[in-house]
C-alpha cells in the first residue's frame, strides 16, 4: 500500500453540462438546482461524490461502501449485510477495504460497529460560473403506461442548455492520518473526478465534459490558499444565459495564476489536466505555467 497523504491539497475542478440536468432538486420537481437570486446553477457535493464512487467501483474495480447493492430479490442491501459481505469486522477493516471511506469519511450507527470518520476530502457545492437558463422539455413515450392502451404517454423533464460548473475541494493531510487516505487514493480521486464525469451517460446526465482540473499540493504545513473557485471568471460575447457551448466563452485564469505566484514559496507541486477546447485567458497559460506561477514542479495529467 502506498504511503499516507503527505501534504495539504486544494482542488479546483471545472466541467460543463449541455442539454442535461446536472443535479435535480428532489423537492422541486427535480428541476436543476438554481440560486434564484443570481440564476447560478448549484450542484451538491454528494452528486460529485456519487460520480467518483461509481467510477472507482465500476471502472477501477475498487470496493466502495456507499453504494446501492441489490439482492436477488430486488431489495437493497442493508448496511449490515454489506458489512458482512465485505467481511468487515472493525472500523479499521472498513478503512483498509473501502476507498470512499478513506476519502470522504462516514458516519453510521450500526449495531456494535459504529463508525465516525470525518473525511479528509471535502467539496463545496459546485456552482456555475454564470447564470443559466432552464428548459422544460416535453416528449412522448412509445410504451403505454398500462396494458390495452393505444398510445404512449407524455414525459417531461427540466434541463439546462448549458452550464459550466466549478467545484472547490480540500484534501486534509491531518485527517488523512486518521482515515488512512494514501497518496495513491488521492491520484485515484483526481482520475475519478475527470473520467467519472466523462462517463456520466444516463439519460439525464449525458452531456457532461470535464474541462479543467487543478490540484495544488502545499509544502507549507497546515496552509491552503482558500476560495480558489472565486479566482476564475468567464468572459463571453453572449449573454450568460445564451451560452450554448464551451467555444462560446473563455475562462480568465489571470487572478488564479497571480494568487498561486504569490503563494509559490508555500507550494510543492501543481497538477493540471485541461481540455483543449477550453479557451483560457491568458491564451498561453498552460504552456507557460511555470513562468506565470513561479513553480517548476508542474505535472500535466492525462487520464485517457
Amino acid at each position, binding site marked *: 500500500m502506498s504511503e499516507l497523504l503527505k501534504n495539504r491539497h486544494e482542488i479546483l475542478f471545472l466541467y460543463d453540462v449541455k442539454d442535461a440536468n446536472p443535479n435535480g432538486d*428532489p423537492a422541486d420537481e427535480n428541476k436543476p438546482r438554481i440560486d434564484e*437570486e443570481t440564476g447560478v446553477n448549484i450542484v451538491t457535493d454528494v452528486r460529485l461524490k456519487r460520480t467518483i464512487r461509481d467510477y472507482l467501483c465500476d471502472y477501477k474495480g475498487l470496493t466502495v461502501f456507499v453504494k446501492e447493492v441489490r439482492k436477488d430479490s430486488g431489495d437493497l442491501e442493508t448496511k449490515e449485510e454489506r458489512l458482512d459481505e465485505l467481511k468487515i469486522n472493525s472500523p479499521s477493516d472498513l478503512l483498509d477495504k473501502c476507498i470512499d471511506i478513506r476519502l470522504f469519511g462516514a458516519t453510521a450507527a450500526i449495531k456494535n460497529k459504529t463508525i465516525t470518520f470525518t473525511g479528509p476530502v471535502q467539496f463545496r457545492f459546485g456552482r456555475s460560473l454564470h447564470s443559466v437558463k432552464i428548459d422544460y422539455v416535453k416528449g412522448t413515450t412509445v410504451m403505454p403506461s398500462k396494458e390495452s392502451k393505444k398510445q404512449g404517454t407524455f414525459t417531461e423533464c427540466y434541463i439546462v442548455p448549458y452550464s459550466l460548473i466549478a467545484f472547490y475541494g480540500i484534501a*486534509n493531510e491531518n485527517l488523512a492520518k486518521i482515515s488512512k487516505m494514501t497518496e495513491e487514493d488521492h491520484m485515484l480521486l483526481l482520475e475519478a473526478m475527470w473520467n467519472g464525469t466523462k462517463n456520466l451517460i444516463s439519460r439525464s446526465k449525458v452531456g457532461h465534459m470535464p474541462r479543467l482540473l487543478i490540484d495544488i499540493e502545499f509544502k507549507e504545513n497546515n496552509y491552503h490558499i482558500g476560495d480558489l473557485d472565486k479566482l476564475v471568471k468567464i468572459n463571453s460575447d453572449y449573454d450568460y444565459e445564451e451560452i450554448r457551448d464551451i467555444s462560446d466563452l473563455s475562462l480568465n485564469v489571470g487572478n488564479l495564476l497571480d494568487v498561486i505566484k504569490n503563494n509559490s514559496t508555500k507550494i510543492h507541486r501543481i497538477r493540471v489536466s485541461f481540455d483543449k477546447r477550453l479557451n483560457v485567458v491568458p491564451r498561453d497559460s498552460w504552456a507557460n505555467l511555470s513562468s506565470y506561477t513561479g513553480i517548476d514542479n508542474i505535472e500535466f495529467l492525462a487520464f485517457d
Partner: protein
Amino acid sequence: MKILAFDIWGDWALFKKFYTTASPLTFHFPPITTLKGIVGAILGLSNNPKDNNFYLEILGDYLFGIQIIKPIKTYRMGYNWIETKKAKYMQIMPPEKSRYQTIIETLKDPYYRVYVGSKEESSFWDKLVELIKNHKSIFTPFLGISEHIAEFKYVGLYNVDKIENSLKKFVSISSVVSIDGIDDISDFLKIESGKVYQRDKIPVEMDNNRKVTKYSTVLYEMNGRDLIIKLKKYWQLENGIRIYLFENKMDIPSSR
C-alpha cells in the same frame, strides 16, 4: 485581557436547530457551541467521543462573541435523504421507500466576525493566534456541515475591557447579545426604524458527552447592524468597538 478577532465566511452554512436530529431549520449564525467546534478544528483538537471531546475541555473557559457582518439570507435547499427511521439498523430501505425528500433551510453567503478570548494564557491560545494570523488550520473548518467549507481571515488582536453594571445607559453593541434575565426587552432596547430585530435561543455550553448544559436567549439585527441597548455587562475593545462575549460560567440566571 486580549481578544482575537477573525472573519469567517463561505458560500453556504447550516447550523441545525436542536429541535430534532433532522431539523430543517438553521440558526442565523454559528451558536457558541459551534464556534468551539470551528476553533477546535483550526487547532486540530479531537472531537472523538473516545477522547471525551477534548476540544470542549480545552475551550471550556474561553470567551466567544459573534458578529453578523453580511445580511442574513436563507435558501430552501431540497435534499434526497435515505430513509433510516423505520429501519432497525439504519439499513437502506427497499426501493419504493428508500428515499425521502426534504427541504432544509440553508444560509446563503454567510459572513461573520468571531471574537475569541482566554482569561488565562495558554499554549493553545498562542497556537490559535499563530495559526489564524498565518491563515493555517490543522483540520478543515466548515460552517455547520462539512461540505460548507469555511474560509477565514485574521482581523486583529485587541485589548479588551469588561464593563459591568451599566444597565442605566444605552450603548451601541456590534455583536449578538445575550438577553438572559431580561423579561421585557422594550425597557432595554432602543427600537430604530429600518432595523430588523431577531430573538432566538442558542446552545452555549456542552458537557463532555456533547449534551447541552446551557442555553442563552439572544438578540441580534438581521443585517448585522448595531443594537442600541442597555446591558448588565459588555466588553469594549481598544478600537472603541463594543461587543458581547459569552462566558463559560455566566453569572446571570437563565430567564426561563
